[in-house]
């Protein structure tokens, strides 16, 4: 390739520049991949959202009666940013959050599951809290299930789910079920 060339042509060949470009590209890609690595806190964020709601409407194991009546504004009462959480959007501008909660009477749930200490996927019916019971991007529920089983699904949201045993003012036994999801990404 360079055998019959003389002087600078031997060294300053197009191939040498090609090698330099390949090396430079490799280094740049590696550095961008390192710096762009995402610290994933979506699940933590979803967990905090649930904690905020629970801390706000449950006091010493008793659920706030107002929460079970129509017209209770969870966002105003719990200092949550309504616009951010209820925003749904589409495509690239899709919302970042999902929040849903339901309150059931304990005897409307599968009691055996609860007595055995099962705290996930309880089967309950006829929620007693008024609508709306969910806000934000509803599709997160299905996408969160996918992201649990597909570790490479980094663009998918992550959710947190909790079942809490609470009482109302008449000491009625209730199950407070909450799901929250987040798909927020850092912005430049």
């Amino acid at each position, binding site marked *: 390739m360079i055998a019959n060339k003389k002087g600078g042509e031997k060294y300053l060949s197009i191939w040498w520049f090609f090698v330099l470009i390949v090396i430079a590209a490799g280094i740049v890609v590696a550095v961008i991949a390192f710096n762009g690595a995402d610290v994933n806190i979506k699940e933590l964020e979803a967990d905090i959202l649930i904690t905020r709601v629970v801390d706000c409407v449950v006091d010493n194991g008793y659920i706030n009666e107002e929460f079970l009546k129509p017209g209770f504004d969870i966002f105003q009462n719990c200092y949550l940013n309504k616009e951010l959480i209820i925003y749904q959007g589409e495509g690239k501008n899709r919302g970042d959050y999902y929040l849903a909660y339901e309150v059931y009477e304990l005897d409307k749930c599968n009691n055996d599951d609860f007595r055995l200490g099962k705290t996930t996927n309880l089967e309950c019916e006829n929620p007693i809290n008024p609508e709306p019971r969910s806000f934000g991007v509803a599709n997160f529920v299905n996408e969160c299930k996918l992201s649990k089983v597909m570790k490479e699904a980094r663009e998918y949201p992550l959710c947190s789910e909790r079942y809490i045993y609470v009482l109302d003012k008449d000491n009625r036994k209730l199950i407070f079920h909450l799901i929250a999801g987040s798909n927020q990404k850092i*912005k430049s």
Partner: protein
Amino acid sequence: MFKNKRGLLPEEIIFLLLNLVFFVVMLLFIINSTNGKAVYEQAYAKQIALLIDEAKPDTTILLDMQNALKLYGNKDRREMVKIIGSGVKVTLGVSGGRVYNFFSSANVKAEFMQIGEENGKPVYSKYLTIDVTK
């Protein structure tokens, strides 16, 4: 290797210089990129957003920012962490900073407290004070 009867050929000198320039530029790029600024920007923005989300109204949080301050240098600290709407923006010198939103609707203020003065210049605490109020 690169000598003829007159010594080093000009083309060979150019070749050596170009190689040297290339590898020095690459080395500087790597050193500049791996000081962790981008990673710290992201980590602090997320950490502050989570602290705000978790805090009940009327809470004051002190966050040790020593690692970020080392990278930030002596620039104006008021520009390092900013609350913009419902987002935290942390800038350590990488392309305009990183922003992460918090879902709390409480009023949030984040600043470095001035703890004294030295040669007429303000001296700030290494702790970021985050005030979350109703």
